[in-house]
């Protein structure tokens, strides 16, 4: 078995070919997917804990249960690609390669955070990784992804824009406007709908006349696939296939990943809108337990592997928390810096 890459290098520098149309299911690759999903979950477990200590404030939307979508889809992206995500974007940022310490410092509101503490949990940005947030207006990121695709096309640059959003966005006008524009202009945009069944507390059946979101994409002539979002390998395979078609010049593609958030919408949600039994049903499909079970059954996962993954994540999270704790507060004198570029560049 070849040596595994360091955690923070899993996406962009793993040496595997992100342009391949199908996943290469080596043991190392599968262990890496497991590691990535666990890394996201443990990071967020720690965030929830830190929230109760009031180290993290404001809104905190956990990705718990949905890790397979970001972890799988991100394997189909390379360094020239862009990512546009939502306010539930910790998993996307981590899987994209944004360093965990900077993400944690952002949650703390520290100057060393990925957005210098000005965005918080909902607004993680990182130019080095073409990570354009962190958008907390539902549907607000889709037009941005279209624009990135347009720029790439007009500049003749390689790469695509991957846009992650929830099924709630399908009710917004920007969803329809963006799909139409991307299809009309044949832009390199990968739309990834994370259908976690609820727009905050409103079930899909209460908000959409047509609940199959992929069908809406097809009506704009965007090739669409529905995929089991609790199966990281299935997500990766679908994302690779879609990205491959986009890179071949075929215009936009759409993925609808059926998934579920195990925890509340945010830290202020009493979850009156869903049964515990339903949550338990979905928990049985936990993407992490599922991949782990599969690896164990096939004899590919040894206790030692898991211990090693656990200890690596534990160390990484501890380091991230220490980095955030040691971080500094932006001086109040700099409050209005970054409103305009001239002031932002002054120092």
């Amino acid at each position, binding site marked *: 078995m070849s040596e595994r890459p360091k955690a923070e290098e899993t996406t962009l520098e793993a040496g595997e070919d992100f342009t391949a149309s199908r996943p290469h299911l080596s043991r190392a690759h599968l262990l890496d997917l497991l590691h990535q999903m666990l890394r996201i979950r443990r990071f967020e477990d720690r965030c929830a804990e830190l929230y109760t200590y009031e180290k993290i404030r404001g809104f905190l939307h956990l990705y718990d249960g949905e890790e397979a979508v970001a972890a799988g889809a991100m394997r189909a992206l390379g360094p020239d690609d862009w990512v546009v995500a939502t306010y539930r974007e910790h998993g996307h940022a981590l899987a994209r390669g944004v360093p965990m310490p900077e993400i944690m410092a952002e949650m703390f509101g520290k100057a060393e955070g990925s*957005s210098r503490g*000005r965005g918080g949990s909902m607004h993680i940005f990182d130019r080095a990784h073409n990570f354009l947030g*962190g958008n907390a207006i539902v549907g607000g990121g*889709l037009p*941005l992804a279209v624009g990135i695709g*347009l720029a790439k096309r007009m500049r003749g640059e390689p790469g695509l824009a991957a846009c992650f959003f929830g099924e709630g966005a399908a009710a917004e006008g920007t969803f329809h406007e963006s799909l139409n524009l991307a299809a009309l202009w044949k832009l390199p945009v990968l739309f990834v709908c994370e259908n976690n069944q609820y727009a905050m507390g409103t079930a899909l059946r209460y908000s959409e006349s047509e609940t199959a979101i992929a069908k809406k994409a097809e009506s704009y002539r965007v090739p669409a696939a529905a995929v089991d979002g609790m199966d990281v390998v299935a997500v990766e395979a679908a994302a690779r296939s879609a990205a491959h078609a986009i890179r071949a010049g075929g215009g936009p593609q759409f993925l609808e990943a059926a998934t579920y958030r195990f925890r509340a919408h945010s830290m202020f949600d009493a979850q009156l809108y869903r049964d515990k039994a339903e949550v338990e049903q979905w928990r049985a499909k936990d993407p992490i337990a599922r991949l782990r079970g599969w690896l164990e059954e096939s004899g590919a996962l040894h206790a030692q592997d898991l211990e090693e993954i656990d200890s690596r994540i534990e160390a990484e999270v501890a380091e991230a928390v220490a980095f955030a704790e040691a971080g500094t507060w932006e001086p109040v004198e700099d409050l209005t810096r*970054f409103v305009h570029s001239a002031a932002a560049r002054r120092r």
Partner: protein
Amino acid sequence: MSGMRETTYRECLREAIREALQRDPRVFLMGEDVGHYGGCYAVSKGLLAEFGEERIRDTPLSEAGFTGAGIGAAIAGMRPIVEIMTVNFSFLALDQIVNNAATLLHMSGGAFNVPLVIRMATGAGRQLAAQHSHSMEGWYAHIPGLKVLTPATLEDARGMLWTALEDPDPVLIFEHVLLYNRSGTLSPEAGPVEIVKAAVRREGSDVTLLAYGGSLFKALDAAEELAMAAISAEVVDLRVLRPLDTATIAASVAKTRRAVVVDEGWRSGGISAEISTRLMEEVFWELDAPIERVCGVEVPVPYPAHLEQASLPQVPEIVAAAKRTLGR
């Protein structure tokens, strides 16, 4: 001056767009009917044939979609000019303008700036009623992160666009609908102009008339009438509503000691209120009279000509307000 040529506000805008397209391959124009139709106000007429469909890009009626696409394209290395047909339609793109264009630089801690220019028509006077006639530029001037330009003269119509495109941050340009046909002479050397200062368009000593966009010419006409009554009015063209050039405004009023603010926008919470307050903060002790305002009447702009005109600032009202500051 020799070599001056006759032109219109519309032609000046078109020349500015053409120059930008020629100078910078990153520049493109995008909006409803900018290509095959030639622009709702004919500003982009002929540019499609000259630059092609990629760079003169007709869009569907998707203000939020194409404005957001302009933001994304700007971030990813282009220099888009987004045309929104009229300011009332811009509200369909308000989320993109306010929650994305204006906030991204700050919210990302300086990681992503948005070098985007959005042009739109504003103002009343063509009997287009309440959904095509409002003056909301003062409202946009409320938003940190945006720059708001209101070219009134041919020089500014010709010169503001290039400077706006060179700005690393989002700039909104408001073109008053009654100015498109306005003609005059322009120097052949006319080119890019600064977009930070207000300009004194007529010097005077008794009262300062502060105006912008379509109202500038009403203020200049009023100054002419006032001169016949032996009142020397100075006329300041605000040019830029955000950031306001408080220094130039205050210096003029400190000199004349009296001020009339003219704004086609509504009085309550409008840019006239902001200017009046700044004058109070800056030159209170220099004032010889309370500041007067002549604003749009607080009503959705009506269709019939007599009611529409009654809802807008007019020369006699400006003259009367100026006279009141002098106790006449």
